[in-house]
Structure formats: C-alpha cells, structure tokens
C-alpha cells in the first residue's frame, strides 16, 4: 500500500516536472507555430546560469532563478529577431536554425564547464514525511510552481490581450495583421516567455537532478511527447498530456525494465495519436 501511495505521488510530481519543462515548448509550438528544437538547450543554459549566480557568485538561489529567467527571456527576444524572423514561415530553415543553436549552446557549455559535475543545491532542502509518504521538499515545491505556471499561462492566453494576440497570429497570421497586430512584436514576446519558462524549468530540474551540457536532449523529447499528445493549440491540454506521460514513466519501471518502459510508453502515445490524430485537445494544422 505504501508503495502505491508513493507511486501515485511520484507520478503526480513527475508529471508536474514534465509539464513545467514542456510549457515553454508548448507556448512556442501551439501559439506561435514554431518547432523550437533549441528548447532543450535553452532549458540547459538556464540551469547553468542559475548555478553561476547561485553557487559561483553566491547570490540567493531564488534571486538567481529570477536572474536566469530574465536573461534567458532577453535571449529569447534576440533569438526571435536574429534566428526566427528571417525564416518566418519557412519550416525547413527554422528547423536547421534551431538545430544549429543547439549545437552552439551545447558545445559552448561542454567546452567551458563540461568536465565539472554540477548540481544546484536544493531550492528547498529537506524531506517531508507524512506517515508512509516520503517526498523531498523541493519536488513538492516544483509541483506547485509547475501547477501555478500552467494555470497562469492558460489564463494569459485566454484573458490577456497579448495572449489573445498570440492565439490570433497562430491561427490566421494574415487576419491578425489586418487586425493591426504586430506579428513580429508578439512573436518576440512569445519567444521571450518560452525561453523564460525553459530557464525556470532548467533551474528547478538542475537542483532536483543535475546539470549536464546534454540534459536538454532527453527533456526535449519528453516535451515533444507531451505537447503532441496533448495536441497543438491547447495549453491547458498539456495537463492531460503531462499526466499521461508522467504516470507512464513513474509506474511502468516498477514492473518492467527500462527499455520495455520506453517501448510501451511510446507505444501508448502512438496508439492514442492514432485514435485521435490531432492529439487529445489539438486543432487542425494545415
């Protein structure tokens, strides 16, 4: 019984972590229609920058998280201007560009600090024990942060003017322009937000797990799984996708070896997509 409770909690927490990582990616894909392969690399750099401020410069860790978020947000604006804008609408060249960015970011970090094993100290140290449940405090905090950000982003898209503009641009760019929406400015805002979210995820994950120049690769695939399963076009749907993927990853390894878990997990996702080719909550894509 104790294992069951801990497993359920583990599944919820892992789902929230995946959702946190996927949010920035989901924003850019669902709302801006940009397949940002560099998301994993940005997530990784965000984590390392937080480490730099928190451990090397000795600042308060939450402050470092904020600084990392701001820096990566600014980087997102730069990214949009230099890398995405020239290839607006050209999927192929955008893909090549994002892959090039991944190479540059990963190689730079690897060459600078790759040899040093780094892990952020826990944002909230300690273990919470309640009866049979044993959970680290930082995972619980991450769970809440993930939930809050998901809710916040969903509300932003629904209610905030900028959010609605982003939605308009992704659904019908020409119509949006006719409405007087500055596509490029909105793209910059979306990109900044996407990168900022990635930085938050990277910093939190960097504390729970550890920092490595290639940590983004695995998380990128998870984010893609999540977003595609949830369907492009729905931010709130990321919750469902996250719960499914997180639960699979938290429960299956108890019964089967790692490889079987991966095969079965992917199989489940593929089957779900075959049943609903647009994802659980997605909209039609041209």
């Amino acid at each position, binding site marked *: 019984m104790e294992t069951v409770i801990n497993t359920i909690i583990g599944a919820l927490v892992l789902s929230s972590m995946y959702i946190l990582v996927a949010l920035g990616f989901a924003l850019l894909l669902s709302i801006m229609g940009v*397949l940002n*392969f560099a998301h994993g690399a940005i997530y990784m750099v965000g984590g390392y920058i937080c480490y730099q401020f928190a451990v090397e410069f000795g600042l308060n860790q939450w402050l470092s998280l904020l600084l990392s978020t701001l820096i990566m947000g600014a980087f997102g604006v730069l990214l949009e201007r230099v890398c995405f804008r*020239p*290839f607006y609408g050209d*999927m*192929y*060249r955008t*893909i*090549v*560009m994002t*892959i*090039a*960015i991944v*190479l*540059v970011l*990963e*190689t730079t970090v*690897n*060459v600078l600090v*790759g040899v040093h094993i780094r892990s952020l100290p826990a944002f909230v140290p300690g273990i919470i024990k309640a009866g049979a449940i044993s959970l680290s405090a930082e995972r619980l905090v991450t769970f809440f942060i993930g939930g809050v950000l998901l809710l916040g982003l969903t509300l932003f898209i629904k209610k905030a003017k900028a959010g609605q503009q982003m939605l308009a641009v992704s659904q019908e760019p020409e119509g949006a322009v006719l409405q007087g929406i500055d596509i490029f400015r909105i793209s910059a805002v979306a990109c900044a937000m996407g990168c900022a979210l990635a930085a938050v995820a990277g910093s939190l994950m960097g504390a729970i797990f550890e920092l490595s120049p290639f940590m983004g*690769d695995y998380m990128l*695939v998870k984010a*893609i*799984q999540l977003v*595609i399963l949830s369907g*492009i076009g729905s931010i709130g749907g990321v919750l469902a996708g996250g719960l499914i993927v997180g639960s699979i990853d938290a429960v299956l390894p108890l019964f089967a070896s790692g*490889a*079987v878990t*991966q*095969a079965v997990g*992917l*199989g489940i*996702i*593929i089957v779900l*997509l*075959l049943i609903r*080719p*647009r*994802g659980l909550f*997605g909209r039609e*894509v*041209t």
Partner: protein
Amino acid sequence: MIETEISLRASGRLARIVAYTAVLVISLLLPLWIRSPYLIHVFNLTLINIIAASSLRLIAVSGQLSLGHAGFMSIGAYTAGGLAKHLGWAAWITIPVGAVATMIVAILVGYLFVRLRAIYFSMVSLFFGIGVLAVNQVCEKFTGGYAGLIGVPVMFAGSKVQNYYFFIGLTVFSLLALYRIETCRIGVTLKAIAQSHLVASSVGINEAGYRVFAMGVGCFFVGLSGAAYAHYFAVLSHSSFNFLASVNMLVYVLVGGIGSFAGPIVGTTVLIIIPELFRMLKAYVPYLFAAIMIIVIFVMPEGLVGLPGQIISWIKGSRERKDTHAP
C-alpha cells in the same frame, strides 16, 4: 521566347548529366590518387549516408517530413547484421533481406500513420525512431541491445577500397532508382499531393496509397544503406541510429537543398567530409557543423546546390548593374 526556354532547359539538363558523369568518373578514379585507407573509409561513410539522405528526401517531397529515418535504417542494419552473425547468412542475401524488411515495416507503419498530417506525422515518426531502438533493446538476445551487435561479418575482408567500389555501385543504383521514381508519373503525383492534398484527393488521387508508397520506397533504400553499413562497420549500436542521427540526416538534406535531387548528395558530402578533415578541433567540431548550417540558411536559400546558380546570377547581376551605370 519558348524556343529559348526549351533550349535553356535542355542545356540545363545537359549540364546536369555532364556534372553527374564527371562526379562519377572522379569517384571511380579517386582511390588511385588518395592512398590513405582512412580517407577512403570517410568516403564509404559518406556514400552510405548519401543513400540514406536521398531516400529521406523522397519521403519528404511527398509531404511527410520524417524525423525517425535513422530508426528505419537501424531495422535494415540489425536485420542484416543479426542474420549474418547469428545464422551465418552471406552478405549478398542479408543486404536485400534487410532492405525488404525495412520496407515492409515502413509500409505497415505508413498505413497506420497516414492519418497524421504535417507536424503530427513528423513528431510521430520521431517517436517511432526512438521506439524502434527501445524495441531493439527488448529483443537484445538477437540485437545485442545497448551493448550493441558486435562482429557482423564484413564484406571483402574489410578492404576499404573494395568496399568503396561496392558502395559506389550501390549508391549509383539507389540514386538512379530514386531519380526515376521521382521523375516518373508516380513521383510527380507525390509532389502534387505534397502541394495540396485537398486538391489532389478532389481529382481522385488515392493520397494515402501514394504516401505509403513513398514511405515504402524511401525506407527500402535507407534499409539498404543500413544493411550495407552493418556489413562494413561490423559494429552496430544504438548511438548510430538515435534521434541525433535522424536529425543529422535531415540536416544533410535541408542544408544541401531539399528542392533539388542533388541536394542530399551535396549536403551529405560537405557535412561529413569537412568535419572529418577538421577532426583536430576535437570537442569544437560541432561549431564548424553549426557554422556551415547557419551560413547556408542565411546566404543560400536553395541550399548548397543553389550556390553555383547564385554565384552565376550574382555575376550576371553585377554585370547588368555595370551596364546600367555606364555613362
């Protein structure tokens, strides 16, 4: 006007035939000039990847951007390698078997995935590519799993030069086949479907059938390249066929120029040979790779194959400008 256009097209075609023949002749004579077995080895890898990249392009022009192509290559490789190592079958049997096995899987997968459009297809192909390796690990008795399949019998006793000629032959065969398919009616229909599936189906074209066909043919050739790779490299491991490998193949095609048949050929060659020549950069090699990618997408809208055309039109353009500026 029409005469000049036709003659231009004909001369363009002639130029292309001359170019391809020249490249072929140079390739055949290459081992006479280049003595280093290591460089021949690099060329062998390039040839294998050219087949894979060109086959990826065929699938891509039918409107399906596959991000799991290396997964299909692994099917061909492990089938051929496993049969050769465990059952002792000879290479000339296992290679076609590997290719056919990949094609069969691709057709099955194609039927399943044909309902998925655009980016969903791409992402599911990505999952498939990863899933194939996971299944590979589950069958580790046959495939060796993460440890890899070691000791696949090599062809031609491992002679780099003999393998080189074999790969030239295989590449020429594959490219001819792919080119023929692309230019015949089937190929034209494929491109039409990619352009607008609504229009295509309204004219009565069985869109699903054509897309599955593209998958089958494309994956036949990547399976072929994988099977040949198995018998050359003798070592198969997941790291040769993972998501990164699929991305690399895609980059070869996109940087070379997806609009042109020669695109994957040029892209693969440049992106394999240049980093190999600059091995001494060690951990910095990816910078070089990224630099080539960035330069190409910024400066060459048609990819690397468009470069000669661009230079010619730039020269022509500056000549025109000189004329107009003449007093």
